């Protein structure tokens, strides 16, 4: 069993100094020598790093408006070659969320190779909404999403990766939180050959809070990578990041790089980040790297935790003492562990579907 757990040492590259550009020519080719691609060889990207065409698949559910990238860039800018190529396509799907709307489900179904898709999601002042982005299908898709969480508003964005075994997806998801706003970001990554999500949160006003949750399960030769980043650039905001993963099979690989930056201006910040991985079999590899950069001493609290590998002996004993064999007990613990995140989706249909998929994977049927 390979376990990789690093302390909060100095990151190879300070996260805040990463270059940002809408111009693909500003980025070098993707290479594992680059910190942000060090775990993911370009061969696994199905050509997303070479050339993209605008999304030809189907978008069903939420109503969308067409706009262009001229209305974008206030929330986040591309930080890698693939995201800048998406941007260069110019087309953007706009999701406007108003007060009194209900949960919106958007099913993003792709079947083609080298697709690019950009969203701008706007949650208006005082609005309380939930958006579920359900990614299904095959092929390869690169996404850029900007999420504008207006002052005093409350938004939950759920990104589900439930793709076919051969599918590839990369998604850069930027959110900016207005004064006293509340943002919850949930990621569930279960299906797909290569999944790479980079959710980034920054603040535009004081008193905002963000909760970023993730659940993932890699088996077969899946590569599932999440790189959440919270940029505390404003005073008196809070963040809580918690990602949970399970791995099964000698070739399964997961990566979690959690960056939290507390800038000088961000006095009174409260932050915690956590990543836990459960390894069901030997050989599976879970890289887990929490990075905490603190530029001011005037904070309320900052902490992180990372653990990979062992099951809790007392939990297993309890289940075994009720007649449940060890392997089944481990599976049950994993199901519960991931269900803690999945049960927050708020759609019984999707939750059942994802739990059934996890069960099939645990039993080696998928």
């Amino acid at each position, binding site marked *: 069993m390979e376990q990789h757990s690093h302390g909060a040492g100095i990151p190879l590259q300070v996260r805040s100094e990463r270059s940002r550009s809408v111009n693909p020519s500003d980025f070098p080719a993707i290479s594992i020598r680059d910190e942000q691609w060090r775990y993911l060889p370009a061969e696994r990207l199905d050509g997303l790093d070479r050339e993209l065409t605008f999304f030809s698949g189907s978008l069903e559910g939420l109503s969308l408006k067409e706009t262009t990238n001229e209305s974008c860039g206030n929330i986040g800018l591309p930080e890698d070659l693939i995201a800048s190529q998406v941007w260069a396509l110019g087309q953007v799907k706009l999701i406007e969320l108003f007060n009194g709307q209900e949960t919106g489900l958007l099913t993003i179904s792709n079947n083609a190779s080298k697709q690019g898709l950009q969203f701008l999601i706007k949650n208006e002042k005082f609005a309380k909404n939930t958006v579920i982005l359900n990614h299904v299908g095959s092929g390869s898709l690169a996404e850029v999403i900007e999420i504008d969480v207006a002052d005093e508003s409350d938004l939950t964005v759920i990104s589900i990766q439930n793709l076919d075994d051969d599918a590839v997806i990369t998604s850069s998801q930027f959110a900016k939180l207005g004064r006293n706003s509340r943002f919850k970001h949930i990621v569930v990554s279960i299906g797909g050959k290569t999944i790479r999500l980079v959710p980034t949160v920054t603040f535009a006003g004081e008193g905002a809070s963000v909760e970023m949750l993730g659940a993932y399960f890699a088996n077969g030769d899946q590569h599932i990578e999440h790189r959440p980043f919270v940029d505390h650039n404003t005073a008196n905001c809070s963040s809580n990041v918690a990602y949970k993963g399970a791995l099964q099979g000698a070739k399964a690989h997961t990566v979690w790089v959690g960056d939290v930056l507390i800038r000088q201006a961000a006095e009174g910040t409260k932050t915690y980040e956590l990543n836990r991985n459960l390894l069901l079999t030997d050989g599976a590899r879970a890289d887990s790297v929490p990075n905490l950069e603190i530029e001011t001493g005037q904070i309320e609290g900052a902490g992180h935790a990372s653990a990979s590998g062992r099951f809790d002996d007392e939990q297993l004993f309890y*289940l*075994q003492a009720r*007649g449940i064999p060890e392997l089944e007990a481990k599976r049950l613990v994993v199901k*519960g562990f991931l*269900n803690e995140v999945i049960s927050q989706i708020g759609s019984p249909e999707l939750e059942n579907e994802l739990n059934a998929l996890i069960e099939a994977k645990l039993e080696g049927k998928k």
Partner: protein
Amino acid sequence: MAILEIKNLHVSVDTEAGSKEILRGVDLTIRSGETHAIMGPNGSGKSTLAYSIAGHPKYQVTQGEILLDGENVLEMSPDERARAGLFLAMQYPVEIPGISVSNFLRTAKTAIAGEAPALRPWIKEVKEAMTNLKMDSAFSERSVNEGFSGGEKKRHEILQLELLKPNFAVLDETDSGLDVDALKIVSEGVNRAQVANDMGVLLITHYTRILKYIKPDFVHVFVAGKVAEEGGPELAERLEAEGYDRYLD
């Protein structure tokens, strides 16, 4: 008639200072329908006995044997022991986040019985058992032991006891942390399970309080890892009056 025999049991645990012997030659025989109370001061090894019977990996048996109807229990994994008819009601049940009580109970019942219970009668049985233990029906949708109060955890243990129907139950300080009302409810559950399944009971307790509700046939006083004195219910009355002082010098 089933029989659980513990013969000359020696058990050690690993500590920072090396291996430490906790049980030093325990002999006990429990038959179907009998209730044995194990009483003793803190640190005498009562809980170690409970965990050793259930097969917790932390406890190493260095000598002696445990036999269930002649079968060597020590060679069985904890789940095999449970399927063979042993049950441990734990003093500190652990939380299993994300797994509902109803899912857990059904999974355990399926494992013990070797097949999934028929859905409708099972739901009815669970509901009745919960009503008997004065547990709210919303309880079954909560995660196993997560955020349960001390009393709720103990009721949940006894709920499992009633549903899984073991031949022998070890109750590890089931009375601790219960108020009088809860103690009565939990004790009635144990008595129901005993009558229903002709169950043998090993009741581990520090106090005589629970013995008002669960009547022991035999009382064993545990001191320094072995049985120091044995007798009938009258021994418990004597302990009530005198405490454990005369065993400790």
